[in-house]
């Protein structure tokens, strides 16, 4: 009786195990095939640019000035305080009185040391206070400068921004920018083709030496001449710079998709 129950339990375990295996296998198949049928859109490389769109440019003269980014911005330091001229840090005032009233050797030396330490501490305190004031003033001036120009130029300035997420590392960005620049510099069309509004997509595969060793049209333009000019551009652009180690494997296997023109 006991053996019969044990056998039944073993059968049930096998059944559950079989069911679990089938369920996992089905899930794996669905995920694998789903990825092929609905491929994820590859990341589109675009330089991220942050534009301040708080308001339209103010109708002020400053707002209309064009800031030349190549000209270094002069730092606005606070005016030196006439009442408190800076003193050289390493030149404390000589202690004439104490030196004049010199006492016997041991005590005198002890007192002199104590007085000197006291003075040093006072001077140090004074110096720190001065530095703090100077730093505060500097900070205040920088803040005022920032506010002044920010206010005047809102909506008129851009900055490079930063990666939007962790996928695009600096190395990747730099290499992709190199490829884009290289392809663009060789990308030209005759007038009669440019007016046609043709578009093509090509995946290029880059080996560790930077050679485009394979290409694959994922979308042809419908005009053989246009497609020939695309291929000619790739030919002229190869070899590219060798890809960084972080990317080499991916570029060799997955490649990079190029959109001609957009």
């Amino acid at each position: 009786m006991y053996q019969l129950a044990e056998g039944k339990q073993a059968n049930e375990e096998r059944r559950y195990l079989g069911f679990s295996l089938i369920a996992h296998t089905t899930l794996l198949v669905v995920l694998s095939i789903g990825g092929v049928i609905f491929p994820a859109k590859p990341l589109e490389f675009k330089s991220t640019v942050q534009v301040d769109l708080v308001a339209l440019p103010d109708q002020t003269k400053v707002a209309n000035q064009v800031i030349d980014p190549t000209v270094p911005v002069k730092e606005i330091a606070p005016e030196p305080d006439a009442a408190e001229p800076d003193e050289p840090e390493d030149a404390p005032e000589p202690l004439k009185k104490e030196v004049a009233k010199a006492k016997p050797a041991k005590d005198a030396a002890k007192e002199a040391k104590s007085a000197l330490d006291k003075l040093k501490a006072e001077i140090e305190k004074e110096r720190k206070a001065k530095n703090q004031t100077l730093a505060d003033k500097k900070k205040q001036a920088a803040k005022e400068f920032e506010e002044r120009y920010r206010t005047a130029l809102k909506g008129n300035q851009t900055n490079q921004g930063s990666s939007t997420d962790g996928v695009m590392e600096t190395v990747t960005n730099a290499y992709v920018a190199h490829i884009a620049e290289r392809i663009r510099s060789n990308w030209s069309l005759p007038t009669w083709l440019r007016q046609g509004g043709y578009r093509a997509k090509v995946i290029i595969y880059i080996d560790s030496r930077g050679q485009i060793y394979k290409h694959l049209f994922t979308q042809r333009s419908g005009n053989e001449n246009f497609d020939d000019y695309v291929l000619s551009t790739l030919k002229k652009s190869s070899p590219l710079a060798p890809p960084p180690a972080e990317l080499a494997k991916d570029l060799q296997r997955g490649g990079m998709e190029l959109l001609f023109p957009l």
Partner: protein
Amino acid sequence: MKTKLILLLAVLLSSPFAYADKPLISVAVGEARVKKSIIAFPPVKATSDPQGAIRQARDVCIEDLAFSGLFDFLDPAAFLEDQNKAGVTPGSFKTSDWSSIGAEFVLKGQGKATASGVEMDMYLYQAASGRQVFAKKYQAGFDAVRKVGHTLANDILFALTGKKGPFTSKIAFVSDRTGKKELYVMDYDGHNPLKLTANHSLTMSPAWAPNGRKIVFSSVTKNRKNVRNHNLYAYDLNTGKVDLLSNKQGINSGAVYSPDGDKLAVTMSFPGNAEIFLLDPASKVAQRLTNAYGMDVDPSWSPDGKQLAFVSDRPGRPMIYKMGADGSNVTRLTFAGQYNATPSWSPAGNKIAFAGWDEGHFDIFIMNPDGSGLERLTKGMGNNEDPDFAPDGYFLIYSSNRMGKKNLYITNVDNTVHRRITTNFGNCESPRWGPAN
């Protein structure tokens, strides 16, 4: 059972689906820079060409394609190929010999001159890939060698751009080289001029029938009562016969065929004031389209035949107007300048060209059919008048006295091409570009 499951898992994991690689990054390359296509056109291999006819056909083709502003030809001094050994048919030469010197297309041919004319087999290849773009055989008598070159140029232009070239079309114009203004036709490049009339009179305003078989024109001739009048005629290019279409009192001039060739829009002044009429060339019945205090002249059809551009001085100065083909919806298009005249509606339908008086001279302008997008094509080069579009809507012909006498010049809507096509032919004016053929 267990072994089977393990096998199944192994197969699934090693399947191409599981490891299907996708591109990591997608980059938009952006708009391409614009340039001319570079063609290498080595001499056509001729087994016999004593009169140089094959060479002439090649030269004409090069001239046409270079004139289009779309192509540049490689200097033969740069050619690497040994042309005695290399062939012209697919696979009989190395395309790398051409792509390596910067050629984008290679045009090759072979031919011979026979007793009756020339025969040429021409091939166009994409240099980098070696792909054959076009191949065609040409045969013609010695009197049509230039036409072979023009036809080859048209065919290459069409094979690459899908647009019909104007290189075999003709130009009708008026010249006073005999002392009287007579009607002539010539090739688009100024070759083969042919005098059509000998009226010893004042001939003006020619216009082509859409099928290219007739040219209407006006001439000052005597009527039955021995009175000189501006009468309207049609010249049949096949028969040389001239038909009188209208001799109503006063002006019968500036006629233009409708795109279907059934009607003529023409200026007539028999009511006492120059107005635009629709004339049926078969029945000679005229139907009045305009009715204004000022004069209405120089009609030009839109390519769909639904509208007409014309000149009217109803605002006090001659300006360009347009109206429906039944005279309705009259709309003023130009407001600038002192005197705007001779509108010509592009066969592409997207532009109207006209001559405008500015700074003491007439110059050529183009604009959109609604009057916007006004652009100047000539400046500071004498008087430039009578623009007329080529059948492709890209080139325009006009007359100019920039060198003293009036000569005919060709430009394009991009204003990148300027070419004089008449020389020492008296004063040439009223050019009209014939249909593509």
